[in-house]
C-alpha cells in the first residue's frame, strides 16, 4: 500500500463530508465505495503503531492496528456498507398499495459515515487521547443521525438530546478517568486496567460502560435508537455499544465486576423486551441483552470468553442490522412500529419477513446461524471457568432469547392476527442489504472458521458443531419456543411503555426542576419586591434625611450655628477640665 498509512477511520470520516457534495450515481458509488475502501485500508495496514504525533506533551499513536481492533473495524465497515446500501433511498407508501422512492437523507448518511469512521478510529486508537477524541466524535455524529430524522419523527429531537447528554456525561467521566490515568501513570497507553486499583480505572470503566448501555443508564438505548429513521437505527445499533465492547475488551478483560454488570444487562434486556410493545424498542432492549452477554464474557476474561465476546459482537452487529432493516422496512412501508398495530405482514412482505426471521434465529443462536457459533463461545467460557450461577443465568437468557425476540419479533410483526395493513414488499436496495446481512449471518453460522481466524486469542480451540451442542441447543430453543406458544396469552402486547431509570431524568428531574424554578422564581419575586420596597423606603428615608429639606441641607439661622460652636467649645473645655 501507500507509504503513508492512512487512518481507515479518517477515510470514512472525511468521506462523510463529501457525501452532500455529490449527486446521483456518484453518490451511490461513494456510499458503497467508502466502506469498502476503509475495509481495504483496515487490512492493508501493518500491525502495530505506524504514526506518532506530538500533542501537548504526549505522543499519540492514532493508527495502531491490533487483531481485535481490526476485527471490530472490519465489522464496522461491513455494517456501514450494509447500512449505506439500505439507506441509499427512502421508501414511502404512495397510498395505492405501492411505494415511491426518494433520495436517501444525505445528512443522515453523512453523519452515519462520520459516526462509522469515528468508531473505526476508536478501534485503531493506540492511546487513550486518540481514543477519547474519536469517542466524542462518535457521540456527536450519532446525535446528528438522530437529528436527521427529526423532521419525520417529532419525538426524535427530545430523545436525541437525552441521548447526547447521556453520552456527554459518559464522555466527561471517561475524560476524567483518562486525565487521572495519564496524570497518575504518566502514560497515555491504553493498557489493561482490570485490577481496578485506582479511581482512574473506575472512571474509565464507567465511561465505557455508559456507552455499552450498562445500568443504571441503560435506558438511553431504547429511548433514542427507535426514534431514528429505518436506516438510522441500523447505523446506531452497530457502533456505539460495540465500540464500548471493544474498549472494555482491551481495557478491562477479566474485571470481575463486569460479570455482574453483564448479567444484569442480559436480564434487563429480556424483561424490558418482554414487556415492550414497540418492535424497534424490543430490538433496542435486545441490544442491551446481547451486549450484556459480551460484557459478562469480558468479565470472565479467559481466552475463550474474550474470543467469544469479540466474535459475538461481530455476529451481533450483522444480525441485529438485519433485524433492524427488516423492522425498518415494515416501519417505512406501514408507518407503524407498535406490535399492537402490526401483524400478518408475512403475506405482503414475504422476503422482509424471511430476512427478519433469519435475523431472529441468529439472535436466538439457532444452529447454522452466526449466533450459534459465537454466543456458545461465551456460555462455554462461563462453564469452563466454573461460574455456576453465571452459566445457569446465561442459559436461561439463551432460552429467553426465543421468547423476548427470537419469536416475539417475527410473530407479532409478521404473523399473529391480521392487522389490516397491506404494505408492498420492501424495495430492492433494502432487500439487497438484508440479503447481504442474511448471507453473512448464515455464512458465519455454517463456516465459522474464517471468523474464528480473526479472533484475538489464537488458536481458537473450539468446535461449535458437536452433536452434543447441536442437540442441547435444539432442545433448549425448541422447548423455549414451545413455552412461547403456550404462554402466548400471557405475552400479549399492550400499548404501553415500561418505566426505567430514565424516569428519573425525564420525570423526576423535570418535576424537581420545575418545582425548583417555580419556587425560586416566587422567592426571587418576593425578594425583588421586598428589596424594591426596602430600597424605596430607604431612598425615601435617605431623601428625608439628606434631601434638600433635610437637616443637613437646610439653611440654618446663624443662631443654630453659634449654638453648635458653643456646644463644641463648651464640650471640649468641660472635658479637658474634668480630665
Amino acid at each position, binding site marked *: 500500500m501507500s507509504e503513508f498509512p492512512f487512518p481507515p477511520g479518517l477515510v470514512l470520516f472525511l468521506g462523510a463530508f463529501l457525501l452532500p457534495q455529490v449527486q446521483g450515481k456518484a453518490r451511490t458509488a461513494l456510499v458503497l465505495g467508502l466502506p469498502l475502501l476503509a475495509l481495504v485500508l483496515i487490512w492493508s495496514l501493518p500491525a502495530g503503531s505506524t504514526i506518532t504525533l506530538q500533542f*501537548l506533551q504526549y505522543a499519540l499513536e492514532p493508527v495502531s492496528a491490533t487483531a481485535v481492533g481490526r476485527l471490530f473495524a472490519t465489522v464496522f465497515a461491513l455494517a456501514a456498507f450494509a447500512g449505506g446500501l439500505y439507506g441509499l433511498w427512502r421508501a414511502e407508501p404512495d397510498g395505492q398499495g405501492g411505494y415511491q422512492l426518494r433520495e436517501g437523507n444525505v445528512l443522515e448518511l453523512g453523519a452515519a459515515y462520520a459516526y462509522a469512521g469515528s468508531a473505526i478510529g476508536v478501534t485503531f486508537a493506540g492511546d487513550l487521547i486518540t481514543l477519547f477524541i474519536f469517542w*466524542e466524535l462518535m*457521540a456527536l455524529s450519532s446525535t446528528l443521525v438522530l437529528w436527521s430524522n427529526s423532521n419525520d419523527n417529532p419525538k426524535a*429531537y427530545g430523545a436525541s*438530546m437525552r441521548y447526547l447528554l447521556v453520552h*456527554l456525561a459518559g464522555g*466527561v467521566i471517561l475524560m*476524567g478517568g483518562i486525565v487521572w490515568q495519564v496524570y497518575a501513570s504518566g502514560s497515555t497507553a491504553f493498557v489493561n486496567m482490570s485490577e481496578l486499583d485506582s479511581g482512574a480505572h473506575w472512571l474509565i470503566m464507567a465511561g465505557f460502560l455508559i456507552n455499552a448501555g450498562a445500568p443504571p443508564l441503560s435506558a438511553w438505548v431504547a429511548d433514542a435508537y427507535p426514534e431514528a429513521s429505518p436506516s438510522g437505527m441500523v447505523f446506531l445499533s452497530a457502533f456505539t455499544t460495540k465500540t464500548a465492547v471493544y474498549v472494555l475488551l482491551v481495557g478491562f478483560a477479566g474485571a470481575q465486576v463486569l460479570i455482574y454488570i453483564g448479567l444484569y444487562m442480559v436480564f434487563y434486556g429480556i424483561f424490558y423486551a418482554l414487556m415492550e410493545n414497540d418492535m424497534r424498542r424490543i430490538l433496542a432492549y435486545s441490544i442491551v441483552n446481547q451486549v450484556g452477554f459480551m460484557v459478562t464474557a469480558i468479565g470472565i476474561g479467559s481466552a475463550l470468553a474474550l474470543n467469544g465476546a469479540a466474535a459475538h459482537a461481530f455476529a451481533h452487529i450483522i444480525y441485529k442490522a438485519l433485524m433492524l432493516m427488516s423492522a425498518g422496512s415494515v416501519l417505512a412501508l406501514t408507518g407503524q412500529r407498535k406490535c399492537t398495530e402490526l401483524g400478518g405482514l408475512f403475506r405482503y412482505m414475504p422476503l422482509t419477513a424471511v430476512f427478519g426471521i433469519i435475523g431472529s434465529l441468529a439472535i436466538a443462536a439457532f444452529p447454522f446461524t452466526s449466533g450459534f457459533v459465537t454466543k456458545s463461545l461465551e456460555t462455554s467460557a462461563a462453564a469452563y471457568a466454573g461460574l455456576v450461577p453465571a452459566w445457569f443465568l446465561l442459559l436461561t437468557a439463551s432460552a429467553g432469547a426465543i421468547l423476548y425476540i427470537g419469536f416475539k419479533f417475527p410473530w407479532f410483526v409478521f404473523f399473529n392476527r391480521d392487522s389490516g395493513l397491506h404494505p408492498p414488499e420492501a424495495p430492492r436496495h433494502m432487500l439487497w442489504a438484508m440479503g447481504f446481512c442474511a448471507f453473512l449471518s448464515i455464512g458465519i453460522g455454517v463456516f465459522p472458521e474464517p471468523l474464528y481466524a480473526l479472533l484475538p486469542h489464537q488458536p481458537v480451540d473450539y468446535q461449535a458443531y458437536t452433536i452434543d451442542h447441536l442437540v442441547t441447543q435444539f432442545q433448549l430453543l425448541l422447548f423455549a419456543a414451545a413455552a412461547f406458544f403456550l404462554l402466548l396469552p400471557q405475552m400479549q402486547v399492550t400499548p404501553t411503555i415500561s418505566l426505567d431509570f430514565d424516569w428519573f431524568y425525564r420525570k423526576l428531574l423535570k418535576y424537581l426542576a420545575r418545582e425548583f424554578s417555580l419556587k425560586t422564581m416566587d422567592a426571587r419575586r418576593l425578594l425583588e419586591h421586598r428589596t424594591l420596597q426596602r430600597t424605596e423606603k430607604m431612598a425615601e428615608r435617605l431623601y428625608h434625611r439628606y434631601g434638600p429639606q433635610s437637616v443637613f441641607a437646610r439653611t440654618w439661622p446663624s443662631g443654630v450655628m453659634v449654638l453648635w460652636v458653643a456646644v463644641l467649645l463648651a464640650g471640649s473645655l468641660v472635658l479637658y477640665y474634668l480630665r
Partner: protein
Amino acid sequence: MVTATLILLSLLVPLLTALGIALAGRWPNMREGVTLTGALLLALVVYSLLPPVLAGERPEFTLLDMMPGISLAFRVEPLGMMFAGVAAFLWPVNSLYSIGYMRGNQEQHQTRFYICFAIALFAAMGVAFAANLVTLFVFYEILTLSTYPLVTHKGKSSLKAGRVYLGILLFTSIGLLLPAIIWTWQATGTITFTPGGILGGKVSGVALTALSVLYFYGIGKAALMPIHRWLPAAMVAPTPVSALLHAVAVVKAGVFTVIKVAVYVFGLETLQSAPGIEWLLYVAGFTILVASTIALYQDNLKRRLAYSTVSQLSYVVLGAAILAPISIVGATLHIVAHAFGKITLFFAAGSIYTAAHKTEISQLNGIGYRMPWTMGAFTIGALSMIGVPPAVGFISKWYLLMGAFEAHQYLAFGIIIVSTLLNAAYFMPIIYAAFFRPEAPGKPDDYGHGEAPWPIVVALCITAGMTLVLFLFPEIPYQLAIQVGR
C-alpha cells in the same frame, strides 16, 4: 532594550490609533483603514514579544514613578503574553467584523465607537503587561471607563444597563480591590508581581482568607456570582463590543487578574495555607452551575451567551481555586480557549442580527441553510464551549481536570461533569434549530436574507478556524501556560 520599546509600542499603538481614528473621523473609509492598520500593527508588536518570552526572557519597562516606591511599570511574563496575544490577535479580526457590523446596521457614532475600542485595547495591553498591582489597577479602571461609552452606545435605552455595568465594576474595584492592594502594600512593602507570591509569611491565617475575598470579589470583571450582573447588562452594547470586550478583553482581564493575583501575589502555597480558602472553589462552582442553568432559560441569544460567559469565566477561577500548578495551566489555557470560542459565538449572533435582524433563539429555526457559514462557525464555537474535541476547549478542560485530580478536588470534577451537560443542553438546541427545524412560515420578505456582509463572515470563519487550529497545534499557548504553572 528592543523589547522594552516593544512594550511601549504595544501601549502606544492603540493610543495613536485612537488619535488617528479621531482625526480621520470624517472619512469612514480612512477611519476604518486606521483601525485596521493599528490593529495589525499591534498584533505585529505583540507577537514580536512572543519569541523572547517563550525563550524565558521577561522584558521590563518602567513608564514613570507614580508614588514613592510605586511606579507604572510593565513586565511581560507568560500569562500576560498569553492575554495580550489573544487580545492582539482578535482585535484585527474584530475590527474587520465591526466594519461589517456597524455599516450593516447603520449604527450611529461610529467614530466614538472605534476610538473607545482602541482605548479599551490600550487598557487591555496595560493590564496584560502590568508589572505590579497598581499598574494593573490603573489599566483595569481605564478598561472599565473606556468600555462604558461602548455599553451605552445605544443611548438612553441602555442607560440602566450602563449604570449596572459601571456601578458594579467601579464599586467592586474601588470598594474591594483597592483596599486589598493597599493592604498588600502595607503588609509587604511591595506590589510587584513575583513568582511564588509576595504575601507568603507576611499575612497569614484568617487575614489571608479575608484578603482573598477582597481580591477575588474585588475583581468584578471575573463575574463571580453574585456580582455577575454587569455582564448580562453589558449585552445592550453592539455585538462587536460583546464579542471582543465582553467575551475576551474585559472579562479576560478579570480572570487574568484572578490568576495573576493567585499566582504572583498570593502564591499557590500561601493560598493553600489560608483557612477556608475553599470558598473560592465553592463560589466558582456555584457560579458555573447556576449561570449555566440560567443560560438554559434565556431565549435572547446574546443573553444566553452572556450567562454562558459568566459560567465559563468561573472555569478559569475554578482553575485558580483548585490551587494546583496544573490547574493553573488549565485556567490559563481556558482564557485562550474561551476567547476564541466565545468570540465566534458572539460574531455569529451579530451576523444573524445583521443579516436577519433576529435576536431570539426561538426565531432561528432553519437559519442554518440561509447562513451556513455563520451557523457552521457557531457550531464549532459551541463545541469548544462544551469542551469536546476537535475544538480547543477540550485542551483547557483536560488540564483543569488534571489539576482537580492533582489536588484531589473531586468536587471540581463533579462540577465540570454537570457543567458540560448544561453547556450542551443550552448550546445544542440552537444548532439543532438552525439546521434541523423548518423555517416558520412568514412573510416572504422576512426570509429574503442570506449570509451577513463578507467582513463578518470572514471574521467569524477566522475565529472558528482558530478554535480548530489551536486544538491541532496548541504548542505556543501550551508552552506559555506551562511557564505560568511552573
